[in-house]
């Protein structure tokens, strides 16, 4: 393990994430991990890393970093200008950096989160089986917090690519999403919303300013619970994508930093669509569409095939 990058400016909210921490929700430890799993996995695929290698998740304004040794890097996700010294670098492709280089990820033009992968992945200690940062718990990543100026970021390293890798545009998801339609499976408490489900599916909801890795609060027509249904339920496990409906009838889509909740959940966003939600900013309008479990399974398979196609496209497949 040796330091690869030095943080000169941390950006607005930059954390180390992998694909999440499973097996500890029974003691209240959330999964954390990259919110846009598709982008995080793609960045690693470009470098021949394991998909679960730790990456930087950069939110809205990216960091400025000094390079301390030679490595390959790749940036995916939101459309954020990438400057290596004075040169602009394309996203969704690999590029070589040398000691003394400066890398700057600027403000997003569209989308919300970018992912920076490095050869071998960032080498922070595994905590409960994952390198993901859990800020509320204060562990994982760099001291359990978002990056600060002066942080050194160690990387595993490994063999460099023999040539630059790039993904064809048809395999890259659009960063700009004017009409964001999220597919949901109804439930687990859709039976308490016999009328409310119609409101939820028939109306646009706007992402409020209260949107972070914990969840996205939405604003729109009030979703009414059935008159005989109780406002809250006995606390039960939650899952990223759950659409909670608290007393005010304004839905909240839960993301990756929560393990239990006592609000009723009208529906659950399917996991491939969470990557698209991860790129949505406050103000963006969302619509919901129900799919059957079978359709949800096919969508999941399609997403895995998409990642497989990325891997096959690259000239230097290593895993």
């Amino acid at each position: 393990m040796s330091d690869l990058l030095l943080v000169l400016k941390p950006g607005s909210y930059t954390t180390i994430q992998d694909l999440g921490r499973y097996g500890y929700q029974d003691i209240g430890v959330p999964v954390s991990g990259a919110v846009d799993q598709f982008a995080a996995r793609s960045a690693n695929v470009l470098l021949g890393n394991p998909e679960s290698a730790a990456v930087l998740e950069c939110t809205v304004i990216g960091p400025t970093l000094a390079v301390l040794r030679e490595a390959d890097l790749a940036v995916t996700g939101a459309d954020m200008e990438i400057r290596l010294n004075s040169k602009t670098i394309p996203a969704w492709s690999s590029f070589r950096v040398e000691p003394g280089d400066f890398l700057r990820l600027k403000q997003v033009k569209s989308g919300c989160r970018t992912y920076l992968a490095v050869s071998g992945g960032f080498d922070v200690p595994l905590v409960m089986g994952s390198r993901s940062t859990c800020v509320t718990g204060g562990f994982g990543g760099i001291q359990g917090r978002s990056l600060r100026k002066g942080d050194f970021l160690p990387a595993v390293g490994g063999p460099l690519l023999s040539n630059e890798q790039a993904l064809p545009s048809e395999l890259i998801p659009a960063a700009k999403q004017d009409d964001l339609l999220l597919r949901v499976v109804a439930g687990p408490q859709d039976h308490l919303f016999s009328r409310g489900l119609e409101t939820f599916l028939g109306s646009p909801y706007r992402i409020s300013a209260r949107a972070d890795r914990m969840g996205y609060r939405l604003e729109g027509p009030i979703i009414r619970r059935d008159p005989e249904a109780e406002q809250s339920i006995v606390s039960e496990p939650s899952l990223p994508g759950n659409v909670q409906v608290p007393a005010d009838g304004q839905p909240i889509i839960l993301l990756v930093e929560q393990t239990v909740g006592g609000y009723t959940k009208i529906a659950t966003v399917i996991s491939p669509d969470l990557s698209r939600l991860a790129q949505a900013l406050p103000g963006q309008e969302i619509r919901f569409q129900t799919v059957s479990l079978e359709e949800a399974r096919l969508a999941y398979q399609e997403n895995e095939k998409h990642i497989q196609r990325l891997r096959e496209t690259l000239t230097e497949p290593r895993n």
Partner: protein
Amino acid sequence: MENTIYSEPRFRAVGDRGLLVEYGDSIDPVLNRKVRTVAQLCRTDPPPGLIEVVPAYRSLQLIYDPLQSDPPSLEGHLRSLEDRLDSISPPPARTVTIPVCYGHEFGPDLSVVAERNALSQEETVRLHSQAEYLIYMLGFTPGFPFLGGLDKRLHTPRRETPRTTVPEGSVGIANGQTGIYPLSSPGGWQLIGRTPLRLFDPEQEEPVFYKPGDNLRFAPISRDEYLQLTEGGDHV
């Protein structure tokens, strides 16, 4: 008490990779014991594609890989467990003791809880520390125990204005619940004391030393003892 358990578990799909399994709809020790037993069986003998099982009060959630499993096969697996449940006991319950310094700067709301319930502060502490609590589940923040068994004479509504920071180790009451904040966080519970123990340590093999199903007791300690136990560091 048995009638709080459904005769058949109820299954609810949660998106494309979750299955919620309800065994009843109340907060009840017998029901919770069933949930924990099933969770344990799923861990020792996991069905194909299972990623994680998360037990709660009266339900558990299975997280699965949709390429390897689906709700019908998981439901089949759980139904097949039903007959085995009677012959299996959950891990033996332990009793963990949490030292607490009540009042002083550690329990700024002890007087509120006492006054609202027309008790002396000494009586409040006695009632809170003589009970044995069941840990139903952990969640909200890492290591936060949801406890059952708070004496009715101590029930107190939340603070009207939540505190922006509740210090790590604080012991509080909110309506019919009592609990401990393992991490500093915002919170609206009435704070009656604080433990010097570090309840969540991510570096440890077992980051939390108690589990759902364990019993928990609070043991009053003096302010001097509290300070001694935290000397040379934040928490022991």
